[in-house]
């Protein structure tokens, strides 16, 4: 048995959900393998079946046919309540229990699993710290006393409470304002780097998918997989018109945001230019070039000394051969 807290693989084969009286299934013949510790994004428009697909994994929705395994075990053969206690679940509306304190909310699954009081209390403390909420301040508050962003952090903490190997997240940051959203995404990315769960994350926001996902599954009607690949590959080479349309404009900028400056060759520095660190992205470098109007931007390494510089041409080169938009006259 591997470390129970690390992620395990999920495999969906020919999963179909058909509601009675409807000609087409909501989800048809969906097959996909999620690797252990992977954060897989389901991206698609509203009503494409991405949420339905995800909810079949913890059997909130029962599949009509097909098989789903987690760590090789067929979920359809397990008791659904027992199954759900070992899958973290975060929904957009958060669904905190308003009559319970934050601590009681987080303790829900551990209590269902029969943990001792002391163990539950320790875990609640640890989790509140993990999601950057001071236990002394927040443990005994009620959900309505928290802001939307704080509530969503509690939602994530509650889903992590019993250290499940698998997490299902349904637009968890969808209802927060843009600034809170960015901060929650950033925190979540750091958290996932630490805990390495296997996560299926549903969103309709392609930017969010690029920012967080190890891989992205772009879905169309009836949960058809149009493309499933890393963000960089999808941006560089969309499989078809549908995917290209979903990415929209700005694919180049999104790709630049994924590439740290440290990964591209640098030219010699000049003394006058503004500087960025090697851990910043090429998008930051381009941003600085546009803002300063200069020819190049200097790059400093971890120790703070100047390591080289970047130009517009260097940044473009990082995206590979220049790709002219089709239909443009030379």
């Amino acid at each position: 048995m591997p470390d129970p807290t690390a992620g395990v693989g999920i495999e969906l084969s020919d999963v179909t959900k058909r509601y009675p009286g409807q000609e087409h299934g909501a989800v048809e013949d969906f097959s996909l393998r999620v690797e252990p510790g992977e954060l897989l994004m389901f991206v698609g428009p509203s009503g494409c079946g991405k949420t339905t697909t995800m909810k079949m994994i913890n059997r909130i929705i029962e599949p009509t046919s097909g098989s789903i395994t987690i760590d090789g075990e067929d979920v359809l053969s397990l008791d659904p309540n027992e199954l759900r206690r070992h899958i973290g679940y975060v929904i957009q509306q958060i669904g905190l229990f308003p009559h319970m304190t934050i601590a009681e909310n987080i303790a829900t699954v551990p209590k269902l699993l029969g943990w001792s009081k002391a163990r539950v209390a320790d875990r609640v403390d640890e989790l509140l710290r993990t999601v950057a909420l001071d236990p002394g301040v927040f443990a005994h508050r009620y959900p309505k006393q928290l802001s939307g962003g704080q509530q969503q952090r509690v939602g994530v903490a509650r889903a992590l409470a019993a250290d499940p190997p698998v997490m299902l997240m349904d637009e968890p940051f969808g209802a927060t304002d843009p600034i809170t959203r960015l901060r929650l995404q950033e925190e979540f990315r750091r958290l996932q780097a630490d805990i390495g769960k296997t996560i299926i994350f549903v969103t309709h926001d392609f930017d969010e998918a690029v920012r967080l996902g190890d891989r992205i599954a772009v879905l169309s009607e009836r949960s058809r997989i149009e493309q499933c690949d890393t963000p960089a590959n999808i941006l560089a080479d969309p499989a078809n018109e549908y995917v290209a349309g979903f990415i929209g404009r700005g694919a180049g900028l999104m790709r630049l945001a994924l590439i740290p400056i440290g990964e591209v060759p640098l030219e010699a520095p000049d003394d006058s230019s503004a500087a960025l660190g090697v851990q910043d992205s090429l998008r930051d470098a381009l941003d600085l070039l546009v803002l300063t109007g200069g020819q190049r931007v200097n790059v400093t390494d971890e120790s703070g000394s100047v390591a080289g510089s970047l130009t517009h041409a260097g940044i473009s080169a990082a995206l590979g051969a220049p790709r002219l938009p089709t239909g443009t006259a030379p």
Partner: protein
Amino acid sequence: MTVHTGQRNALRRFTTPIAVVLVLGAVFAWVGTLDLDSIESRTLNAEHLLDRTREHLVLTVVSSALVAVLAIPTAVLAHRVRSRIVKAVVIGLGNIGQATPAVGVVILLAIVWRTGFTTALVSLVAYCFLPVLRNTLTGLEQVDAATREAARGMGMTPNQVLWRIELPLASPVILAGLRTALVFSVGVATIATFINAGGLGDMIVNGLKLQRFSVLLVGAVLVAAIAVLIDWAAGLVEDRVRPRGL
């Protein structure tokens, strides 16, 4: 600041009983100044008053308790079935119970069955069933779907969802229904006198029939005082029991 708020709350909390005591005191003081004839003195003595009040309270409290025991589980079942038809039928039956005039139910039951306490109790239960049923059903229905889904998604069994999430969240509405039922039944219990089931209705009806204004007045004031005090006590319980955080 908090001291002032606390004082104001305490004041509000005790205004009702103090007012009731003042009114009762005034009525009894007035009765004390009267020259009671033989009919009046047979009724307006401590023993008679206590007996009628006790009968009235027993009718009210027992019928409300029965309503709680019957209507809340019925509502939970109707909620569980998730069928609109079942819900409509249950609410419809409750509506019929309440729409029928209480006097009619009491008299009819007495004719076809028998007179006395049990009959009065049955008609009170029929009459007060609806508010508790409807409030319980409404309370359960209005629990946020996301809250319920989160509970289910974390692996609570349907029973755990009911006891830990739905009933606590619905409790303020359920309690409000019970409070309504209690106050209803104080009023309706006065009708019990027509089928020889006692209660303060005896004094009101006798006072009217025998044209003894003092008897009528004392009976009516006592009924009103009980209704007000029960509502007040139920309010205190509601405040105490309501889940925090709502």
